[in-house]
């Protein structure tokens, strides 16, 4: 079993809360979390729905291994239609709330409608209440978290919450849980706030049981924990440096997008790298990094716990930011750093704190600031637009100032909250937006890592590294080394990664296990826990089914194959230095083959044959 087989439906418009049995037929076809919630979403929501209207729904879903002892088994996902991209949104988070939800007895919560005034949902096992949140509205995630804990007199409550960014309509707002973990991408927080839902607070005491074969499950879990511990990436690299282990590596490859992707190498990369986070500061003798931390059940523990130098200009008179909190991870460090040209580690750490405190995606945000800096550089926007801020590439002061505005949805921060695509269109330069389907790029230049170009172009939620992380193969040689500058074989690679990732994202486990694990390691854990037969082949098939279902939703929402593209800068302007010098992203060499292998038409539409092969809804 492992599923609790119960879901909660919360109608925010009329305040109804109902309990439904989990559709076990769907669970066998879509596993859980990302896949299963998408199946529910597709069945219930018109793809053309206004993402910020009351008819959009928002699902918080766990996987069957969430809350179990399987390493990293604490994940949950938020599924909705994205206001940023108009596609399906599915954002995954660790921390502890996923396990809490499962411990309270719920596989997922489906939110529908819109509350007439601000509310939060309180879940204490079977007791579920929609409570007023007028006093929480207008507060940051960190403030609201403290107030909810105080109100219920219970430090063991786990909380997912939106901040002032979401309340003010920032289109890339996140849902932050446990203070500094986040369902970060695609504006899922914006949808939550549009429903007047400030937070979800969960206390679960029931436990997760009903494991199909407990003895086999514990044997698998113990063996697979050892695989993670013995692997150089998951056993050493990630605990020591976090995902920031990549900053110097990717820079050396000439694949570190710099200054809004105008360049592919950043001269200040070392200052904001994982290695730099270990170096003692001259001022107080402490390193930026205090220690690593694990999410629920995670034996890798890549999380960063960091401080900002108390004397740094960003926090000099703000003792509330002197303590430890979630530190820089690679994607955030890149977007806020190299992409804006800022090499000030303390500034980036503080800005990352603010992204967590008020809930907005540091990838989309940093990338949008980078585009604004380029517009400023070109003279398209001036101090008049920014409210007096000199928004030059490399200015830590400017970055800090506009972040404080974005967190509260004030001044020029309101413009940045539109995201890069809408902002660049507003100023008449859509070509400067480094986005696919309206979502900003993460930290890998597809000119230097060709598979990532196809990954970004075909991702079902707009530009994203977490839909098929071919960096693993093209850079790290996992599971096999492929040439990052080569396009041949990449369609096959991307499809294999997309399908496996969709399965992992539906299990309750963290994608980062796949530096050491393949489906060969994961399927036996699912099979020992869950009823049904969960072979490697079945998991891969479930992954492919999920991918096609998401694609189907997007096509019905009005997207076409023409949206599977990259910004001209990456297709036309060759990399200027490094191993990829002279290269553009060879998307045209990969996309037709990708469509063919997917069983789609030459313009990227699903065929009836593909639909019936995966038994997708008509």
């Amino acid at each position, binding site marked *: 079993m492992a599923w609790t087989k119960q879901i909660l439906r919360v109608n925010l418009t009329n305040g109804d809360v109902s309990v439904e049995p989990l559709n076990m037929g769907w669970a066998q076809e879509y596993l859980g979390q990302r896949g299963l919630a998408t199946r529910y979403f597709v069945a219930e929501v018109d793809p053309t729905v206004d993402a910020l209207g009351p008819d959009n729904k928002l699902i918080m879903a766990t996987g069957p291994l969430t809350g179990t002892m399987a390493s990293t088994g604490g994940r949950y996902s938020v599924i909705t239609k994205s206001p940023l991209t108009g596609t399906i949104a599915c954002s995954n988070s660790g921390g502890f709330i996923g396990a809490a939800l499962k*411990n309270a007895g719920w596989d997922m919560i489906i939110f529908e409608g819109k509350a007439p005034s601000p509310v939060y949902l309180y879940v204490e096992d079977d007791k579920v209440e929609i409570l007023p949140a007028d006093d929480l509205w207008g507060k940051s995630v960190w403030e609201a978290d403290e107030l909810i804990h105080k109100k219920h007199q219970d430090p*063991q409550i786990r909380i997912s919450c939106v901040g002032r960014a979401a309340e003010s309509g920032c289109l890339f707002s996140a849902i932050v849980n446990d203070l500094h973990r986040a369902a970060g991408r695609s504006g899922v927080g914006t949808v939550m706030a549009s429903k007047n839902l400030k937070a979800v607070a969960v206390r679960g*005491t029931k436990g997760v049981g009903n494991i199909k074969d407990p003895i086999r499950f*514990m044997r698998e879990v113990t063996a697979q924990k050892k695989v993670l511990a013995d692997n150089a990436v998951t056993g050493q690299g990630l605990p020591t440096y976090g995902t920031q282990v990549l900053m110097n590596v990717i820079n050396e490859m000439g694949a570190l997008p710099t200054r809004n992707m105008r360049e592919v190498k950043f001269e200040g990369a070392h200052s904001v790298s994982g290695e730099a986070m270990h170096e003692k500061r001259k001022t107080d003798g402490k390193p930026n990094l205090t220690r690593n931390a694990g999410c629920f059940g995670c034996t890798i523990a890549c999380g960063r716990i960091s401080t900002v130098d108390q004397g740094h200009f960003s926090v000099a008179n703000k003792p509330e930011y002197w303590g*430890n909190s979630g530190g820089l991870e690679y994607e955030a460090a890149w977007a806020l750093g190299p992409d804006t040209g800022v090499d000030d580690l303390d500034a980036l750490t503080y800005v990352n704190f603010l992204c967590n405190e008020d809930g907005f995606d540091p990838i989309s945000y940093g990338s949008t600031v980078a585009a604004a800096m380029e517009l400023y550089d070109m003279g398209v926007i001036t101090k008049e637009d920014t409210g007096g801020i000199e928004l030059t590439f490399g200015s830590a002061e400017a970055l800090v100032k506009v972040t404080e505005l974005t967190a509260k949805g004030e001044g020029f921060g309101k413009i940045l909250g539109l995201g890069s695509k809408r902002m660049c269109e507003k100023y008449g330069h859509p070509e400067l937006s480094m986005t696919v389907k309206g979502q900003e790029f993460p930290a890998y230049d597809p000119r230097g890592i060709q598979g990532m170009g196809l990954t970004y172009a075909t991702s079902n939620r707009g530009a994203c590294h977490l839909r098929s992380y071919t960096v693993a193969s093209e850079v790290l040689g996992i599971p096999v080394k492929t040439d990052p500058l080569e396009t041949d074989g990449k369609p096959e690679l991307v499809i294999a990664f997309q399908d496996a990732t969709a399965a992992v994202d539906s299990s309750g486990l963290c994608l980062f296990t796949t530096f050491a694990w393949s489906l060969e390691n994961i399927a036996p854990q699912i099979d020992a826990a869950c009823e049904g037969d969960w072979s490697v082949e079945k998991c891969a098939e479930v992954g492919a089914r999920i991918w096609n279902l998401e694609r189907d939703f997007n096509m019905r929402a009005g997207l076409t194959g023409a949206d599977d593209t990259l910004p001209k800068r990456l297709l036309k302007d060759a990399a200027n230095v490094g191993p990829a010098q002279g290269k553009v992203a060879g998307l045209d060499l990969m996309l037709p083959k990708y469509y063919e292998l997917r069983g789609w038409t030459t313009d990227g539409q699903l065929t009836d044959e593909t639909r019936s092969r995966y038994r997708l809804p008509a």
Partner: protein
Amino acid sequence: MLMKSLYINPEKCTGCLQCEMACSFENEGVFNPARSRIKVFTFHDAGRFVPYTCTQCDEAWCMKACPVEAIVLNAATGSKDIINDRCVGCKVCTIACPFGTVNYNSASGKVIKCDLCGGNPQCAQACPTGAITYIDADATGLERMRLWATKTDTAHHAAA
């Protein structure tokens, strides 16, 4: 036979709660941190995670306070164990324990506390970082001594 005791080094703890799951699975048959005998505390501002559980006091106040002799010494491990059949759920032991490591379980109407899993504590087995170990009870300072010994030794070499 050597007596062993749990030895907890918070410096190594990442806060993953594998110990809490192992404990609840061993004792309750489900993964349930809310029913774990060991708890990991997060000190957010300080950036520290600290596991905490029963130290198995020699003069165990919980045992002395129990009016029905439901808490007994396990001579093999030194743990103080709850005899469920005797426990009446009066909770006096939860008050007597200065450390808070005996707690009431409303689901069973009995108290729960660490019993070292009869000599094979599952929290220590599950801990991925060695923050929780089960070692010679008379030499729990050994690791720290070793650390200082290294430093002393280094100083000696540096001076030479």
